[in-house]
């Protein structure tokens, strides 16, 4: 009886499949997008934010009917696994995503794990596109044909901060930045840029923002050198605490935050909307000013409603963008399975129409996607107009071309702050 | 062969052993007796390097061994047992013997790793020796047994065997029959005599007077860490100081 049931079910299934194959484009095929990152442990919030961006993009694309290649429709599915920033786990997850689930691209948001994944993503027979969400410039120095780095290199932010600080007449700064790969490089880079200008770093007191609960001794040591500004930052919540503790210790100068910390998150969550507590703080542009307000606001609302994220950040947005670009590149390349061809198509599809993607990605150079690094200031208790810095160009004509691509209603200041090693000749 | 000279040990101001001197002569059975807390075990611990004396010295054949570590003193031919039966109770009987034989061999890491000719011969020699000693102990058929399966008497015997396997010149026994019934005690006593007859000098700490009187050639009596008498069993039996020390105490424990 049982075998009869099974075999009849099998026959039915076979017929069904046959029918589906014959029917061709009428049935959408699912393309798997892989994600591995910290979904538990200290960096889980960061990992989940990045994942949410990819997921929402996939949901949006699927809602619009997926993508069509040669008349055949494809929808997307995200398969995600936790790696807790362990390279072994990240490599295992990538193998699983690629060999079991046939993922063609895998997202990962931490340099340490990306570095291990880049050892296997070009292996013949199991290639995949490494979608690397890391602003660490070290990534650009690893030769790899199948990597796409999503955010701007953080050196671009360092230069932009240093530039404005110098203009303001500040000369002495101190640093209380998070420990770790990312924070270490930020400190090193900012010191390099600042000292090149002739400025002085009076104190460097890194602290582990993930495990430390009190920063007063770091701050006391830093403030004792009478700096005009403090470079701080790591995850947003402790960064807010650092700023509060520094102000409590009587510091009246300015703050700059590394790109991991988010202005609007700290204002809205840490300080419950009290912007006065964040006065004189500079940081990466708030989410709303990433693109044209109307489009951006719509996307923010969707993150809030559909992904249950209280205060969407650039982690959500940039990963969202990257996924949209990836889908568009697949269409252009005419394949959902050849990572090399898909990567080659990136430059042809950029920039995307603004209604698909509010962030102005304009191209791909080497492994790095090109997008301006925008910083913003909270002064006189309000968000000021952001400054976009273009870090991969060094002439006005190119700037004009790029500005013309942007929707005119996007209100920003623009600067050319070329970054060594990134300027195309 | 072994002499103790003016040995003193203080524990946090408490005097456990005071100015103690005595000799152990080749081929004899010397007993050290005394009431509870007289410092008998402490004397053993001082002689074998487990404790460092506050002052005084220990000699073997004129060689000063004070301050040496226990494992070094073993190599001078002095083996000991502990008051509570002390064995490698997670291992088998034969393993216990082999471990005790280890220092006589050169079975180190490299020899073991490469199974050199030296390893082979010494390994065989160790096994042979262990089995011979087990035979002597009457435990040959238990060679592969695990310790917890042995009877208490067998464990006591094995504890002496571990000390014997390297054929020491001097054997120090700390209450080898503690906790045993009369019959078992007698068997152990006979066994100890057999050990002495094979040419090993024995020094024994014991509570059981009857057994000691029948076995020892000479007796040293301690009280409050000091020697109060020394002599043959007959001399000790009649010694006034000894009788006083044991007065109220249980002579036949």
């Amino acid at each position: 009886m049982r075998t009869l049931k099974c075999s009849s079910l099998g026959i039915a299934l076979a017929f069904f499949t046959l029918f589906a194959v014959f029917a061709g484009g009428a049935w959408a095929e699912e393309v798997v997008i892989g994600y591995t990152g910290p979904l538990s442990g200290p960096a889980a919030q960061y990992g989940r934010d990045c994942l949410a961006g990819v997921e929402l993009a996939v949901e949006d694309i699927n809602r619009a009917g997926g993508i069509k290649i040669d008349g055949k429709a494809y929808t997307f599915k995200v398969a995600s696994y936790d790696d807790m920033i362990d390279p072994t786990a990240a490599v295992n997850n990538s193998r699983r995503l690629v060999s079991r689930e046939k993922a063609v691209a895998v997202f990962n948001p931490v340099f340490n794990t990306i570095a291990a994944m880049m050892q296997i993503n070009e292996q013949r027979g199991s290639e995949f596109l490494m979608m690397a969400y890391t602003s660490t410039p070290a990534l650009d120095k690893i030769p790899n044909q199948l990597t796409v780095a999503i955010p701007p290199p953080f050196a671009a932010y360092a230069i932009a901060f240093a530039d404005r600080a110098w203009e303001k007449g500040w000369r002495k700064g101190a640093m209380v930045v998070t420990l770790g790969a990312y924070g270490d490089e930020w400190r090193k880079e900012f010191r390099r840029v600042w000292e090149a200008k002739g400025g002085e770093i009076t104190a460097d007191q890194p602290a582990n923002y993930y495990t430390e609960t009190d920063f007063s001794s770091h701050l006391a040591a830093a403030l004792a050198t009478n700096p005009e500004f403090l470079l701080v930052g790591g995850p947003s919540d402790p960064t807010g605490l650092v700023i509060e503790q520094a102000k409590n210790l009587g510091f009246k100068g300015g703050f700059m935050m590394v790109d991991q910390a988010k202005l609007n998150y700290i204002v809205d969550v840490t300080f419950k909307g009290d912007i006065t507590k964040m006065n004189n703080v500079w940081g990466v542009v708030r989410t709303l000013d990433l693109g044209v307000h109307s489009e951006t606001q719509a996307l923010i609302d969707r993150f809030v409603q559909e992904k249950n994220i209280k205060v969407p950040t650039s982690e959500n947005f940039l990963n969202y963008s990257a996924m949209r670009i990836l889908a568009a590149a697949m269409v252009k390349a005419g394949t959902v399975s050849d990572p090399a061809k898909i990567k080659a198509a990136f430059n042809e599809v950029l920039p995307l129409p603004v209604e698909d993607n509010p962030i102005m990605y304009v191209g791909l150079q080497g492994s790095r996607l090109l997008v301006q690094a925008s910083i913003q200031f909270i002064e006189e208790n309000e968000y000021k107009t952001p400054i976009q810095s273009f870090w991969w160009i060094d002439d006005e004509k190119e700037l004009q071309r790029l500005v013309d691509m942007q929707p005119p209603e996007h209100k920003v200041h623009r600067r050319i702050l070329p970054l060594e090693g990134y300027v195309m000749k | 062969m072994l002499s103790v000279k003016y040995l003193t040990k203080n524990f946090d101001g408490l005097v456990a052993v005071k100015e103690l001197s005595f000799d152990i002569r080749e081929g004899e059975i010397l007993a050290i007796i005394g009431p509870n807390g007289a410092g008998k075990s402490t004397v053993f611990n001082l002689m074998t390097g487990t404790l460092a004396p506050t002052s005084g010295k220990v000699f073997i054949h004129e060689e000063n061994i004070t301050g040496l570590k226990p494992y070094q003193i073993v190599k001078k031919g002095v083996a000991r047992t502990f008051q509570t039966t002390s064995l490698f109770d997670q291992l088998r009987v034969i393993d216990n013997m082999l471990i005790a034989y280890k220092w006589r061999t050169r079975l180190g890491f490299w020899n073991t790793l490469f199974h050199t000719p030296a390893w082979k011969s010494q390994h065989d020699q160790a096994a042979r020796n262990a089995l011979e000693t087990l035979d002597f102990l009457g435990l040959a058929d238990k060679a592969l047994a695990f310790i917890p399966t042995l009877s208490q008497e067998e464990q006591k015997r094995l504890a002496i065997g571990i000390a014997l396997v390297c054929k020491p010149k001097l054997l120090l026994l700390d209450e080898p029959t503690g906790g045993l019934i009369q019959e078992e005690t007698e068997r152990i006593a006979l066994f100890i005599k057999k050990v002495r007859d094979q040419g090993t000098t024995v020094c024994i700490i014991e509570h059981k007077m009857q057994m000691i009187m029948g076995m020892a050639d000479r007796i040293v009596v301690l009280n409050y860490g000091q020697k109060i008498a020394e002599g043959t069993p007959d001399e000790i039996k009649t010694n006034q100081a000894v009788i006083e020390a044991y007065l109220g105490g249980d002579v036949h424990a």
Partner: protein
Amino acid sequence: MELFLQQVFNGIMFGSTYAIVALGLTLVMGILHIPNFAHGHLYMLGGYITYLFVATLGLGYWPSLLIAIVVLGFVGIIMEAVVYRPLNEQPHINAFIAAIGALLVLESAVEVIWGPQGMRVPNPYPHTFEFLGIIMSVQRLLVIFGAILLIVLLHLFLKKTLTGTTIEAVAQNREGAMLNGINVNRVSSLTFFISSGTAAVAASFIAPIFVISPAMGAIIGMKAFIIVLLGGMGSIPGAIIGGYFLGLIESLGGGYVSAAYKDVIAFGALIVIFSIKPTGLFGKKEG
């Protein structure tokens, strides 16, 4: 000079937290011989319980603190009964593994319930003032004096009450206490209640000044472990002195030598101390 005083002040405040957390742990390790490596995670949970009652349910700070003590106390009792009691006869290393299991449960449970992001408990006493050039806040002073009060209360409890002396009796001689009709299991539960409760106090004191996160327990748990061994297992003065010592070393070492290597200084000092005195500063020989 002002900087030095400021760092000393900070060090004393850190030290107060360390001392309270280590105090709870030294009771468990000294009396029950349980290497409760999850102690820091109990502290973390204490922070979240405070958060639950202060921020989510809107209760006052002090009532929430009391509730946190009781809740954590019972969590401790459950942990002892479920995790450690079945392991009484096993080697220490097994209990250590069980502790790792327990801390994984606590950390991921908190992560599942409250999420992985850091959170803040509203500060009941945010006022700051300057004294001798040192900037202080009322809450920070509360941590320092609260810790002293707690230590005194605990001392009185252990020395002057019948229950307290029972605990000490078990600490000195477990078998003997059992023969004297002391219910050792009850004492174990009680010890865990006190130990977890004090961890909750430390967390409640600290929560309004800092960010609470699921990961906050790991490092302080390890430090408490080290303080306890440094001060001698079961030694209350050892835990207190060790706690303040570590707090000051970190604060001064971090401020004057290198912030990145601050833990190296503390842990290095530990290794040096142990290699000179293998049983810790106030340690008896381990049985």
